[in-house]
């Protein structure tokens, strides 16, 4: 028989839950005092150095090839950057062009869709735009963001204050022009969403109901229940469909195409179902491939969607683009640690923003609930692995409690269903009622803080720092906006701001320039020469496109028969 569960939890975990219940009333009374737990800069450093996966030794190495040679990145990222191309350039005929368009957008998530819409607003006809995407249109981390989107629109807030929050959260490593663009465009983006009919939570006067986010000095988080990302994504996708913007699904780009004059001239797509390739020539190319969660850096579970395999980083790097801040990985403090079926899935920061406090096995507070994400995550790991004040699950995971019933006590019965229905529903499916019982959490791999470096026009930068005139990027694939750590509510904002800027910039190029120069894959061959020198196993190829979760036994017995390839 399987373990006996009471309200979704095994009996031994119930004992700890009772301790959490005992301290709850007092903790709610003293909620204000939690601020006193906020760490100083020096204390933040101490905790990060010992307990954050980015700082702990053994997870990274120096890049041996390409523009960023000599820089330190996570091993899993180095593995795909220092790899043989998945595609053999000799098998491709670049003279036979399948799609000849004004703008090619690689990636059909948030950034790609926003870029397409703004290029279209700028006068590029829909039929001259092509979105190529690996899974379905909208299958992206954009769809999964729950908590909300930041914009400084309240009278006692300002883009300047928003800027400072972004900067401090990012350890002061952020690029000025990008943070300025992010925070000044933010209110415009919200206005655009209002006009498109995004159903944000509002009060009766029409002002947004705004909440705290970790590491923010003002309440400026706009949300749509805890389906914010889904609501925005499905609205912009609906608009793209209304405008007949062509989308090729299950056809990821596997290599960029360069030109004889050192530009980007399109991409090679690969139809995952028929296995044929397509040559796309474009006056302007927008990279919007998202992040890297499915690389499972340091073996962490992830909140990310199935296709988050950093394909864009790989392709852009081979073509000579400069990457930045890749040594910094975002672990979201609150991933589900129990039950096993949902380990790693995101528990939105909004749960803390609405008042739920993280407590240890004994029901004690140990951290200010709204530190920046890296600090909060490190404090959780410290409590679990440094102090041992955690709850162990039947499968060996460790976690601390997030005391969700506090939300009902503080905001009234029904507050969770009203504001956190996605969370409630997820736990309910596995027999846990988060309005009555706390939930067990542990940090999970969440976001690629850095990426392909861009400027304020969303142009991608080359190794020498000069921009590619025809190559743009928006969303999680680009870097520089968030420095070394992104704050909550700035990823939805990022893809909207820089997706829009990429779309507008690409439209300008498409209007003012002719076709790109002679297409070539010479850069792939040159890169391969470099890879040859460093002893990479032949089996290591990239982009990897999808993770592989097949069972060990199956893989051990798997053979390919040449008759059915």
């Amino acid at each position: 028989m399987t373990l006996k569960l009471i309200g979704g939890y095994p009996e031994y975990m119930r004992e700890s839950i009772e301790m959490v219940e005992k301290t709850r009333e007092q903790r709610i009374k003293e909620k204000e005092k939690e601020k006193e737990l906020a760490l100083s800069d020096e204390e933040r450093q101490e905790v990060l150095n010992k307990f954050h996966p980015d700082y702990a030794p053994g997870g990274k190495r120096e890049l041996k090839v390409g523009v960023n040679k000599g820089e330190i990145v996570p091993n899993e990222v180095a593995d795909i950057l220092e790899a043989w191309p998945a595609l053999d350039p000799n098998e491709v005929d670049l003279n036979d062009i399948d799609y000849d368009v004004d703008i090619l957008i690689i990636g059909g998530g948030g950034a790609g869709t926003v870029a397409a819409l703004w290029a279209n607003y700028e006068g590029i006809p829909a039929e001259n735009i092509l979105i190529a995407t690996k899974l379905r249109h909208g299958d992206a981390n954009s769809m999964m963001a729950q908590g909300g989107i930041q914009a400084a629109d309240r009278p006692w807030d300002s883009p300047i204050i928003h800027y400072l929050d972004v900067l401090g959260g990012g350890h002061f490593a952020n690029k000025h022009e990008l943070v300025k663009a992010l925070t000044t465009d933010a209110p415009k983006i919200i206005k655009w969403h209002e006009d498109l009919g995004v159903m944000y939570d509002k009060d009766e006067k029409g002002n947004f109901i705004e909440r705290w986010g970790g590491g923010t000095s003002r309440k400026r988080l706009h949300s749509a229940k805890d389906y914010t990302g889904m609501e925005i994504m499905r609205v912009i996708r609906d608009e793209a469909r209304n405008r007949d913007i062509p989308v090729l699904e299950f056809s990821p780009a596997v290599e960029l195409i360069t030109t004889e004059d050192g530009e980007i001239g399109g991409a090679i797509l690969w139809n995952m179902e028929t296995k044929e390739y397509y040559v796309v020539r474009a006056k302007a190319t927008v990279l919007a491939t998202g992040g890297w969660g499915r690389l499972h850096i340091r073996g962490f579970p992830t909140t990310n969607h199935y296709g988050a395999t950093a394909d864009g980083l790989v392709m852009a790097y081979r073509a000579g683009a400069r990457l930045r801040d890749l040594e910094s990985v975002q672990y979201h403090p609150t991933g589900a640690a129990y039950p096993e079926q949902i380990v790693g899935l995101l528990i939105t920061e909004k749960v803390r923003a609405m008042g739920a406090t993280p407590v240890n096995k004994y029901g004690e507070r140990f951290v200010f609930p709204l530190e920046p994400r890296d600090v909060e995550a490190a404090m959780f790991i410290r409590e679990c692995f440094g102090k041992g004040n955690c709850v162990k699950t039947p499968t060996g995971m460790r976690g601390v409690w997030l005391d969700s019933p506090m939300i009902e006590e503080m905001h009234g019965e029904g507050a969770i269903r009203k504001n956190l229905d996605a969370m409630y529903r997820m736990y309910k499916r596995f027999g846990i009622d988060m309005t009555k019982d706390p939930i067990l959490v542990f940090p999970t791999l969440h976001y690629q803080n850095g990426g392909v470096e861009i400027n304020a026009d969303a142009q991608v930068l080359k190794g020498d720092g000069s921009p590619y005139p025809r190559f743009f990027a928006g969303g999680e694939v680009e870097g520089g906006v968030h420095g070394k750590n992104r704050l909550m509510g700035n990823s939805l904002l990022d893809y909207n701001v820089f997706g829009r800027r990429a779309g507008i910039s690409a439209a300008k190029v498409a209007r003012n320039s002719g076709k790109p120069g002679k297409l070539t894959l010479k850069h792939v061959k040159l890169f391969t020469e470099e890879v040859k020198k460093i002893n990479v196993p032949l089996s290591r190829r990239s982009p990897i496109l999808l993770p592989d979760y097949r069972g060990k036994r199956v893989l051990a017995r798997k053979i390919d028969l040449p008759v059915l390839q």
Partner: protein
Amino acid sequence: MGKKVEILDVDSKQIMDDIKKAASPPEEVEHWVTIYVMGKPYQVPAGLTIMKALEYAGYRFIRGSGCRAGFCGACATVYRKKGEYRFRTALACQTTVEDGMYLAQIPFVPANKAKYDLDKIEPGPTTLLEYYPEIARCVSCNTCTKACPQELDVMYYIQYAIRGDIKKVAELSFDCIQCGLCTLRCPAEIQHYHMAQLARRLYGKYYLPKSPWLERRLKEIDSGMYEKAFENIKKLREDPEAIKNLYYKILHEGLEKEEKHIEDPLEFIKGED
């Protein structure tokens, strides 16, 4: 060192290795169940989601796997249990396997979305019927509601749609993940989830009041009133200590003063000039 965190002497690398081990699938399987994937039996560990069980059995998804967290609707699954007449629906990523499940995944749902220019619609009681006339064919069988993996009252919102209550449709359909199971099961051939998308956009655009604060801020930004402050901040960043102090000052004052109206939002930065 401050007073809130004591210094711990730990082996950080060892901790990371321990985490990796804790997060990996257990080596030994204690309990097994048999599932039937499109009719073929496979033994899989008990307690997995349908999605992970299929992968364990050797399937590698191209279609049928998206967010893996219940938000995207890519993994719509239909199944029956052994010996049961009932036809069931689920999201593969959010449902635990049970012994004797007969499973099939739905790779794609053919459905037509109406095209519209939202700016040109004047929403009224018949708008939804104009764009999706088939909603009038609803026979109130409630099959859509039973099929919904989000447990939404789908039939209710169709009934509200027929009556032209856009607000109700928007509210009741809000948690829709557009998996299309309702549309596949509907005997009246209604395309529920596309219709509801129109309703929500109409509601968001025309029924929810516009934010006055947002308008004010947009005017401020357009007037260029923040440009000077951004220049000042850029300069201040040349002195790492100064910018750090300003950041912590604003962070801590903000936590104290939030919602107390500060007339001039540039107050902070001016003080540092």
